[in-house]
């Protein structure tokens, strides 16, 4: 053919478009001369060889199709080409007279000489013209789709409403187009700075992309989003999608949001906490900003509520009907109870107790199979209440799918990896049906198209908040009517559908009208604190759309006062305003600030960031034995939080070695996204703390060397190129779902091949040095770091403490109960480390010590009692403690308790009226309490000095770091004190006769100086009796017990001499000892010297409390580091020895 075509082409020499022999496609094809003709596609350009077509492959495909079409329509002979003059005359007809485009010969790289070349050029023009038409239609289709949205007919209504009122409510069902169109309408109306809030980050990003596309600005920044850690906003941005939380933060900074001329609050019907808060704030804002326009958008749920709320502002309502196809409704309650009971016993081996019965769901699927042929497309969406329920149903449907093989089962819930969630949007192959089993995430947040059948269990799991025990509860409820209707509506988005309700119509009628707003279901502390810090004088008068119970507000205010975030007059304190600045739970904010007085906060930042993200361990991490095994070596005895940090460290080390972390995470069952979040969050904490001067800016000055800089430079260029490429890539397209089994691994490999953009981002941000710093901050192998961190965690979590049940010692793993002050009988979450290794929380037999004779109560006596501090309390099937750490009980209680009561001999201490410590070893209570008071006051005065400095905008004094490192060491010493005691929970009966309620004795009133805290003036405590001796401690208010009196009597017969100086007392008198304590010359000499770094190497200037020294039962002896000898000495002799040793040196 090629030879023939050459002769056919003939006439090679001619120039111009003269009459030459014609090309006949029967024996000629341009495709055979690709190599030779390609040059003709090029334009003149500085870079030689710039093609006129976007995609040459596509062009050659077009050539092939064009030739085929010409041949098949009987026009194989290409007509001679016309010159420009001929093209504008109507006669005679020529196809090319329809082409409204010309090539610009001057700009072409080569001239077309031969007929083949000229015809090829012409074909190029035909192609370009075709592409023009294609692109034009793309824009037109886009506009048509916009015009066809239900909201489009209300554009004018909206405009008029905005002209006459400052508040407009747009109510329309999902799919009416309000979220994408209303911001654009506002832009068209002339608003140039529009903020649109969204409850979810994902929605911000996807709406931004969509609206930018519709404004034909995919590659510009007129439309932008701003979410935590990420924003695309520039100076030229006109429409901004922002999360509710972030807009609230902006409000706190720039009180009036002057940067916006229109504010859209979307999805307000969801009634989440931030949404409700924003409604109230914007209501106030309207007064301050007369030109601001406010648009509220909601589904058609309870619209009257919003309309009524903004009535006095003259709110206008624009109601947009949704676009729904008819949906057939069928009530299919599960068969009668007896039948179910029969089944349940049969299959009860596998499904224990409360698991749901998946049979009704499978029955509906089989009903669909019977009544609807698979040739009719349409997928199934099943709503159940939670992840466990999803698992049971998925399992059952998969079993069913082994017979009816056209089913593809896909779970969908918020705990999944994002890529996994994405699968529900893929297409099922012809003749197959997807069966998506979902939580209520698919009710409003995620929209899956192509669903024809909805199966509604009618159940939802909802978090509720129990203010009395400060715990959250995840419980299953019937959904509300409006939720049930939303679920139903999901069947009619793309065509007529069917909704199967697995309950009766009567049950439906008994449902609540609307779901409970979040404000009734979560703690209010962060929100109220934010309100006060925004300058609201009295939170009680805040215009809530639906106010929470007054009692809860009062409780929250009280808790804020206890945390010292609010003053007694309910004004914000320096601590409070710093807390409000931190975008985290109060407890985490507090530990960050408490930690700021210490010289090193690096690890604390990492730990706090880890606490603030969702658990990185997926469900699979606990169910898949391979994951469990892989993780085992990194498990920490200190609890899950510490395990997570060591996993994070491992991850960072992989990053440092430039290995793939994605695979590693998958192998261990870790959701990698969370680790990226930890990194970002940590950086945010650091920035905030640095910007408000709480910590010294990190000396990232550890400069890279020249060679390192060069490598880094090369790396950055590479990474930026990757990033650019990704930015201009098309978003993930919907794919055809692969047919079950085995597909999983393939897909994972698919994923593996693409660039890991999160990794690229990460590497762009962190060079090798920074990475090393980060890695160091996740190192927790020094014991003293762990102790301090646990202490800081405890300071934040307090008063969330739990104590083990007294009978735990004789029980197995499943029955280890714990009690908090407000709620008894809690458990460790079964996946937690402490649930599996519960012996860590128990006293070992070797920890039990013999009791002094006069101590008669039966409570175990030990130096090793532990308490749990927990992050939260969550009730699902059972009440669980979440994120526990274990701490030495007495020390922790004395450092953090709000109220500490003691008797005259300091042998009994009661903390917060629920935990009692018995300290029958002479002097131990005094030592512990005095030191605790002293440390605690120093710690808080350091913190307040720092906060005060900030308020006065002063540089923190240089001496602080010295003082704070001393404090650090002394805290560590304090935590390591070995004191033997018993701990018990007080019963209501105990509490009744706890206090003496007697005025302090004359001897006490005669005290000239407060022996616990010199600068705290003592007052009588009228309620409990005794004396207030510090902010938190009441001395001598506890009524004496039999054993304390016996102990007192026994001791009185002995004399006492001070262990640090020559001071002696004839009689063992606690009060006299207390008075002596601050004056003791030995103590003063050893007191405030800063100590060298490590505990282990500390020899001199070490406080007397070397491990076990305060314990008379100890038989360990004393090892002197200075003279390298082991000695059997009493306490006082040890001190003397130390002195001598040092003097000798």
């Amino acid at each position, binding site marked *: 053919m090629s030879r023939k075509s050459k002769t056919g082409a003939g006439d090679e020499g001619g120039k111009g478009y003269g009459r030459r022999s014609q090309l006949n496609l029967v024996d000629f094809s341009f495709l055979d001369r690709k190599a030779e003709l390609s040059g003709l596609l090029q334009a003149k350009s500085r870079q030689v060889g710039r093609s006129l077509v976007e995609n040459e492959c596509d062009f050659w495909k077009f050539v092939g199709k064009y030739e085929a079409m010409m041949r098949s329509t009987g026009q194989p002979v290409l007509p001679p080409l016309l010159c420009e003059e001929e093209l504008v005359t109507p006669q005679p007809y020529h196809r090319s007279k329809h082409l*409204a485009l010309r090539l610009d010969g001057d700009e072409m790289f080569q001239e077309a000489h031969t007929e083949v070349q000229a015809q090829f050029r012409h074909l190029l023009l035909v192609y370009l013209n075709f592409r023009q*038409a294609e*692109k034009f239609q793309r824009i037109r289709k886009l506009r048509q789709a916009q015009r066809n949205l239900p909201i489009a007919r209300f554009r004018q209504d909206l405009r008029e409403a905005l002209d006459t009122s400052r508040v407009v409510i747009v109510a329309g069902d999902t799919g009416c187009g309000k979220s994408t169109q209303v911001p654009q309408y506002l832009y068209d109306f002339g608003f140039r700075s529009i903020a649109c809030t969204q409850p979810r980050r994902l929605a911000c990003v996807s709406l931004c992309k969509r609206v930018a596309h519709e404004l034909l600005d995919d590659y510009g920044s007129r439309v932008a989003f701003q979410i935590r850690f990420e924003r695309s906003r520039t100076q030229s941005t006109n429409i901004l999608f922002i999360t509710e939380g972030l807009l609230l933060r902006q409000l706190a900074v720039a009180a009036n949001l002057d940067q916006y001329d229109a504010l859209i609050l979307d999805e307000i019907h969801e009634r989440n906490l931030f949404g409700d808060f924003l409604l109230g704030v914007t209501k106030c804002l309207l007064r301050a900003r007369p030109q601001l326009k406010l648009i509220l958008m909601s589904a058609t749920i309870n619209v009257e509520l919003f309309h009524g709320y903004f009535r006095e502002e003259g709110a206008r309502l624009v109601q947009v009907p949704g676009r729904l196809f008819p949906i057939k409704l069928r009530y299919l309650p599960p068969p009668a109870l007896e039948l179910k009971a029969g089944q349940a016993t049969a299959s009860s081996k596998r499904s224990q107790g409360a698991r749901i019965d998946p049979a009704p769901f499978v029955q509906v699927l089989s009903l669909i199979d019977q009544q609807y042929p698979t040739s009719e497309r349409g997928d199934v969406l099943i709503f159940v209440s939670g992840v466990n329920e999803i698992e049971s149903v998925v399992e059952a449907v998969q079993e069913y799918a082994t017979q009816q093989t056209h089913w593809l089962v896909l779970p969908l819930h918020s705990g999944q990896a994002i890529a996994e969630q994405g699968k529900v949007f893929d297409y099922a192959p012809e003749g197959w049906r997807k069966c998506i089993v979902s939580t209520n995430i698919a009710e409003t947040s995620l929209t899956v198209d192509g669903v024809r059948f909805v199966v509604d269990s009618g159940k939802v799991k909802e978090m509720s908040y129990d203010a009395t025990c400060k715990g959250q509860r995840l419980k299953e409820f019937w959904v509300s009517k409006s939720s049930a209707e939303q679920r139903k509506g999901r069947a009619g988005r793309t065509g007529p559908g069917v909704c199967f309700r697995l309950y009766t119509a009567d049950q439906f009628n008994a449902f609540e009208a609307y779901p409970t707003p979040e404000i009734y279901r979560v703690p209010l502390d962060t929100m109220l604190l934010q309100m006060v810090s925004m300058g609201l004088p009295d939170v009680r008068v805040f215009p809530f759309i639906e106010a929470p119970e007054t009692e809860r507000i009062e409780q929250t205010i009280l808790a804020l006062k206890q945390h010292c975030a609010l003053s007694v007059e309910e004004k914000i304190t320096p601590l409070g305003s710093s807390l409000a600045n931190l975008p985290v739970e109060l407890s985490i904010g507090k530990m960050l600030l408490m930690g700021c007085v210490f010289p090193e906060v690096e690890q604390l930042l990492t730990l706090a960031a880890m606490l603030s993200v969702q658990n990185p361990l997926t469900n699979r991490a606990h169910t898949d034995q391979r994951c469990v095994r892989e993780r085992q070596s990194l498990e920490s005895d200190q609890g899950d939080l510490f395990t997570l940090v060591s996993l994070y460290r491992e991850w960072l080390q992989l990053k440092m070695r430039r290995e793939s972390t994605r695979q590693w995470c998958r192998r261990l069952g870790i959701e990698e996204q969370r680790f990226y979040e930890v990194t970002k969050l940590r950086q945010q904490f650091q920035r905030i703390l640095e910007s408000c001067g709480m910590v010294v800016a990190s000396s990232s000055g550890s400069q890279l060397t020249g060679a390192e800089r060069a490598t880094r430079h090369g790396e950055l260029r590479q990474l930026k190129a990757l990033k650019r490429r990704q930015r201009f890539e098309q978003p993930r397209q919907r794919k055809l779902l692969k047919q079950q089994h085995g597909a999983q691994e393939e897909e994972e490999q698919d994923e593996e091949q693409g660039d890991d953009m999160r990794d690229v981002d990460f590497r762009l941000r962190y060079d090798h040095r920074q990475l090393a710093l980060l890695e160091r901050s996740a190192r927790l192998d020094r014991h003293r770091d762990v102790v301090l961190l646990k202490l800081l965690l405890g300071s934040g979590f307090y008063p969330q403490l739990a104590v083990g049940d007294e009978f735990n010692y004789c029980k197995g793993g499943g029955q280890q109960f714990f009690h908090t002050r407000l709620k008894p009988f809690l458990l460790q979450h079964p996946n937690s480390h402490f649930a599996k290794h519960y012996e860590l929380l128990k006293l070992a037999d070797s920890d039990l010590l013999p009791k002094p004779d006069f101590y008669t109560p039966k409570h175990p006596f030990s130096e090793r009692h532990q308490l749990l501090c927990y992050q939260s309390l969550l009730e699902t099937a059972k009440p669980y403690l979440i994120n526990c750490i274990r701490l030495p009980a007495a020390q922790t209680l004395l450092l953090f308790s709000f109220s500490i009561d003691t008797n005259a001999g300091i042998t009994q201490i009661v903390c917060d009226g629920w935990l009692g410590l018995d300290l029958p070893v002479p002097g131990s209570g005094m030592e512990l309490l005095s030191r605790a008071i002293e440390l605690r006051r120093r710690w808080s005065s350091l913190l307040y000095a720092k906060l005060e400095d900030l308020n006065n905008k002063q540089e923190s004094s240089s001496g602080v770091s010295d003082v704070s490192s001393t404090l650090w060491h002394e805290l560590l010493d304090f935590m390591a004190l070995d004191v033997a005691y018993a701990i018990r929970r007080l019963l209501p009966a105990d509490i009744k006769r706890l206090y003496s309620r007697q005025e302090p004795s004359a001897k006490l009133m005669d005290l000239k100086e407060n022996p616990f805290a010199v600068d705290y003036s003592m007052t009588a405590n009228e309620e409990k009796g005794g004396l207030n001796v510090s902010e938190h401690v009441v001395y001598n208010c506890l009524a004496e017990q039999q054993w304390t009196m016996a102990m007192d009597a026994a001791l009185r017969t002995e004399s006492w001499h001070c262990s640090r100086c020559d001071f002696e007392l004839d009689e063992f008198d606690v009060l006299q000892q207390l008075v002596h304590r601050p004056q003791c010359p030995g103590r003063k000499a050893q007191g405030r010297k800063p100590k060298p770094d490590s505990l282990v190497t500390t020899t001199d200037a070490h406080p007397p409390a070397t491990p076990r020294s305060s314990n008379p039962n100890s038989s360990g002896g004393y090892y002197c580091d200075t003279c390298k000898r082991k000695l059997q000495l009493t306490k006082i002799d040890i001190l003397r020895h130390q002195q001598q040793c040092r003097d000798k040196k």
Partner: protein
Amino acid sequence: MEADENLVLDNEAAEIERMKLPQEEKKPTDPEEEDERIARIDFLCSGCEMHEMVHYFGRKPPFSLAIKYPEDNYVMRDPFQPPPPRWHTKAEYYISLGAKCSICAKTVCKDPGCSFYYTATFCMPCGQEKLKNWPVEAQARLRKQLAASKEDKK
């Protein structure tokens, strides 16, 4: 930078003066005003009311590569492609939305329902007027187009 050659002049002061003025004039204007990447020309189809902002009206858009139009067209930069570096061009980085009817000068878009091209752009009414003088092939094609667009509207 043609100015480079002009700089070699005797009267430097005058030259500086001359160069200064335009700069001062420019100052108050918004830099965005000069950004040729922003669409500022209104395009409104008289047939279907399609309304877009375009970057260029004429025959040879500066951002196009080696093509031109036989008549004045409303042309926008291709929003579906990543933009080339500023002042550069790129393959197929242009979309013509429409032109003026060669008879009545109404603006019409490229949709088959609004305009017809045969040697020049015609709006549908003018095209129907004009078609008697055309070869039968062109007449057939216009009729087909009319029928199809009517079908579409139903």
